[in-house]
């Protein structure tokens, strides 16, 4: 029982990170039905910037905020330079571009920071908050999950209560009518890219701040695939679905692998994909995704 509880706590920790990256992907998918494969690497670069700022003496949370703003601006520039000139309806070139960005950003980080793992500053109080039997829930897990909820609430508010948020949702819903209403599509999507990158940078920073991890240019590779799976589980266009998806993947990763002995640790990823397959078989639009109804 204690072991099970411990695994649930672990699920919360990993799940929160996956959820934050998944949320970033959902933001871009909502508006453009495009999966941004560079999302994880943008987040990794953002986390390295945070680390660098911290090393230069900027207080930790200040560094995180500046890092988020920086990666938001960078993402806005990437959108303007590489994405906007292509037809948004033609996905293949755009997917290739995001894969290209993935490789370039990864290479840049490797050139600047090398492949040696570096330790990342503690973002949250260390130690355990709650102990139930032998199961320990760390402050880190609580804060990681809390940050995730906070980001979702902020995004939710931004999208429903502000004019640019309304424009973003209008563009997601009907591109042509948005143009006819005078919404500048490019600027609105750029806003989405910036928002997504900022959320991703927070996610990667929290991930790297995990006491058992260190930061290196490949840190987000596995997390990216888990996050894509999480986003797909949630329905790809639902922010809260991304959270549920993230936690589910975290759960699969820690619990299923623990209790099904013939699945070796290396097969975690496959287990996550099998879960995705099962869920999508019964709920084709994921946990909370919009069902597409075609009226003819």
């Amino acid at each position: 029982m204690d072991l099970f509880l411990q695994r649930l706590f672990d699920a919360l920790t990993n799940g929160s990170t996956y959820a934050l990256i998944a949320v970033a992907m959902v933001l871009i998918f909502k508006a453009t039905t495009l999966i941004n494969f560079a999302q994880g690497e943008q987040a990794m670069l953002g986390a390295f910037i945070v680390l660098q700022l911290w090393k230069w003496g900027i207080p930790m949370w200040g560094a995180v905020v500046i890092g988020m703003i920086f990666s938001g601006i960078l993402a806005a520039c990437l959108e303007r330079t590489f994405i906007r000139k292509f037809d948004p309806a033609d996905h293949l070139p755009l997917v290739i571009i995001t894969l290209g960005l993935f490789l370039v950003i990864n290479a840049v980080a490797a050139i600047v920071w090398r492949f040696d793992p570096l330790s990342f500053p503690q973002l949250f109080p260390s130690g355990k908050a709650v102990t139930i039997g032998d199961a320990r829930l760390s402050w880190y897990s609580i804060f990681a999950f809390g940050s995730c909820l906070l980001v979702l609430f902020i995004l939710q508010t931004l999208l429903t209560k502000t004019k640019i948020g309304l424009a973003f949702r209008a563009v997601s819903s009907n591109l042509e009518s948005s143009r006819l209403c005078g919404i500048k599509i490019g600027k609105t999507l750029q806003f989405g890219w910036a928002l997504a990158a900022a959320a991703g940078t927070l996610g990667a920073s929290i991930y790297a701040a995990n006491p058992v991890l260190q930061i290196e240019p490949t840190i987000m590779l596995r997390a990216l695939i888990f996050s894509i799976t999480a986003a797909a589980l949630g329905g790809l266009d639902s922010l809260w679905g991304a959270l549920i998806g993230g936690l589910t993947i975290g759960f699969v990763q820690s619990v299923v692998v623990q209790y099904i002995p013939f699945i070796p640790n290396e097969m975690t990823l496959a287990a996550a994909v099998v879960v995705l397959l099962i869920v999508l078989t019964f709920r084709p639009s994921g946990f909370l995704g919009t069902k597409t109804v075609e009226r003819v």
Partner: protein
Amino acid sequence: MKNTLLDVDELKATYGQMEVLHGIKFHVQRNEIVVILGANGAGKTTTLRAISGMVETTGRITFNGDSITELGPDYIVGKGIAHVPQGRGTFPELTVEENLKVGAFIRSDNDIKADMETCYETYPVLYERRLQSAGSLSGGEQQMLAVSRALMSKPELLLLDEPSLGLAPQIVEGLFARFKTMNQDLGTTMLIVEQNAQIALAMADRGYVLESGEIAVEGEANLLVNDDAIRKAYLGG
């Protein structure tokens, strides 16, 4: 010609390699209702899309004395042209109220709330459903919402693309009666593309018939209704 609101001359539009409009010429006077009739593929929708800046065009489109040929849709709506595209053009995932807010996107004055109230007075059913998603409305209600959404930008000219499409006859009648009162009360000028020639000509001041990208016939609506060729082609004999 100072009463001319929209003046289109030598308008050509192409989709990829294919030229759809071959240099058409027409105009819309202030406070008029003008209808463009024509068969499928004649270029009716393209004509409206050319005016609102959604397709590449050559020629001359003058609105209120200013050339708008080179402008994109986001600027043209600001000049006072609102376009209700074919198939409603609402935002299905947004609520009715949010749809109206998006309609007022280009505005920053303080009358938006009041204009929203006016929409609700015109169509009380939209008020009842203001918190529902637009996608949950019936076809007729969505068309009401689409028109209201367009009016929220306070247009001088309203472009309507086949508003009757897919709606039951009695709903179409109500809708067109509303267009007529809107035109009389608010003075909104309308350019309507329709296949339902009967009901459109009954309400319009003037009409044009578009055939394969060229204006074939033009004239007063009441004359067009009685024109033998038009009766045969568009009014079922």
